């Protein structure tokens, strides 16, 4: 089992300034899954009922001279502490910058190693950062879990494949900051958020308790996938009635999620996506948020980066 690669300048800045801060908010520990072509950060795919978060990079987006080999079709996966990873990347950047003009080519190599830490009898696995500066070279060892077994990797791959299912209808949220502001204030009022997404381009959020109903409706959003025209008679209804009727007509789906999860998934805006889409998976299996990244300076999707979250649906009976 071998892995080594050089982090590119672009890769370092993507990780350090954008993705690691966002992923850190998703949870302390994540899985890093490396394949022949991709590096994928995964939260909560194997365990737990929290927000699943999947950040996938094509190897060229982060690395140069990417070499991986394992007996399991060159796939390696392990658990890593995001904040330690972030610290290692951050200090590597400062060392690389000794050159004056920012990180230069091939000054930051990462690789998997097994080392015998002090006061231990057994070697432990590490993700090692070797940084060559102008005057100094620094080696940082980030502890990682034992690499996942063949069965666990298969399980990870299966849940990753399952997580790729796209909702039939996705609506685009134009202003993530506005949404986050709203949800941050809304979460004082209740714990369960009812989310409905319609083919007409409506996103409806509502918290309802015995004492209060608080909701927000965003209309005329861009729709990807199945769409339908809203019946004109719905125009003058209240937001709540409109959403209920759309669900009854089959033009909308609605699920309940935890307000905390919803708010957490919005932290992904730290990765500076260009826009976000909300959709409900078939059969209301989960609420999916897909963040889109453009190639800088264009409006074309950067296919080498993808980030999406899946929010577990609460049992309406509970």
């Amino acid at each position, binding site marked *: 089992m071998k892995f080594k690669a050089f982090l590119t300048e672009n890769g370092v800045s993507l990780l350090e300034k954008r993705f690691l801060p966002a992923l850190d908010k998703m949870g302390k520990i994540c899985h890093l899954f490396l394949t022949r072509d991709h590096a994928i950060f995964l939260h909560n795919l194997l365990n737990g009922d929290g927000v699943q978060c999947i950040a996938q990079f094509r190897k060229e987006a982060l690395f140069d001279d990417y070499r991986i080999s394992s007996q399991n079709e060159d796939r390696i996966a392990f658990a890593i502490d995001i904040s330690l990873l972030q610290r290692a990347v951050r200090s590597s950047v400062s060392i690389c910058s000794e050159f004056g003009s920012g990180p230069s080519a091939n000054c930051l190599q990462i690789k998997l190693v097994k080392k015998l830490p002090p006061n231990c009898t057994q070697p432990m696995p590490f993700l090692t950062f070797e940084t060559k500066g102008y005057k100094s070279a620094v080696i940082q060892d980030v502890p990682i879990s034992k690499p996942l077994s063949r069965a666990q990797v298969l399980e990870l791959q299966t849940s990753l494949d399952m997580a790729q299912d796209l909702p039939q209808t996705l609506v685009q949220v134009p202003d993530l900051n506005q949404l986050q502001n709203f949800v941050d204030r809304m979460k004082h009022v209740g714990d369960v958020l009812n989310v409905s997404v319609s083919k007409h381009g409506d996103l409806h959020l509502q918290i309802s308790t015995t004492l209060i109903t608080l909701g*927000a409706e965003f209309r*005329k959003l861009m729709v990807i996938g199945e769409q339908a025209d809203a019946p004109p008679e719905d125009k003058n209804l209240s937001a709540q009635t409109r959403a209920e009727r759309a669900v009854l007509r089959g033009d909308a789906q609605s699920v309940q999620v935890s307000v905390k999860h919803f708010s957490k998934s919005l932290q992904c805006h730290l990765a500076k996506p260009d826009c976000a889409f909300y959709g409900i998976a078939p059969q209301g299996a989960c609420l999916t948020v897909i963040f889109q990244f453009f190639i800088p300076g264009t409006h074309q999707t950067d296919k080498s980066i993808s980030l999406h979250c899946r929010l577990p649906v609460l049992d309406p009976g509970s």
Partner: protein
Amino acid sequence: MSSSALEPAAPDLVCQMDNVQGMVDAFSAVRWKRHQDAVIELSEHGVVLIVEETSCLQAKVYLQRELFIRYEYHAEGRPRFGVSLGLFVDCLNTFSAPGRSSIIEIRYPGPDMQLLIKSVDSLDACIYAEIRTRIPDTISWDYNFEPAGSSPLSFTVKSAALKEAIDDLEWPGSSIKISLQPAPPCVTFKGEGHGDLQIDFMYYANTDLLIAFQCDHQISYRYKYKFLQAATSNLPSSVIRDNRGSKLTMGRGGMLKVQHLVSVARPSTSHPHVDSAGYQQPSRIAYIEFFVKPEVNEDAANDS
């Protein structure tokens, strides 16, 4: 559910407000604990929110009709209803987006006697809320405030200084003596217990802090610290920023009235520095009053 959402008759109140944050600030000023029940009273003059505690402390927030950009009142008498203050404030806060003035419409009653709130300034994004109301408890104690004598006993102090003084008096004990004396004109706050702390506002020495003073005889009363703290600790930051004053008046029997002014001006029209003598648009101010009963104490030193 049927599509006909027509109300049978005009609701008691439909009003619109363009500064939600000002409303949140004003109501937050009387929010001294987590779970508080408030009574809201509607009239043709405006909206009054009342909270009280253990028959010793009452607070009122007056939102005059001039603060609203639209105020349609159709009720006979003065409708009153109860809400949870915390829920109401948290809910209003959801409507307030930073850096953007949003217009909300408040309507009472809804089809199920709810308080209905919705944002009305954007067609494509709408926030709405329905708050369950209760039949209000009867006000347990009459807070009729009457002047102590022919001439008022009152002083006006910078809100920031008052808050700081009360905050500082936390450690000595659970009760605070407030004394006024005419010569030399001076207000004294004194806490005794684990040691004592006395804070004097001398009228001539601190004219920038003690703005006005009216007293023709020496008087002093004791008040529970926690009530004085409730009356000052939740002042919104805008009150301090606007450098406003708070007026304290001692009424008959030592009842203390504490009045604060909270700006409900739109952010674009508010002046960053309003000095005390400066012109303050009277119609853009919410009035907040606290009534604090004195501690019953046989040896209260009243020279009146």
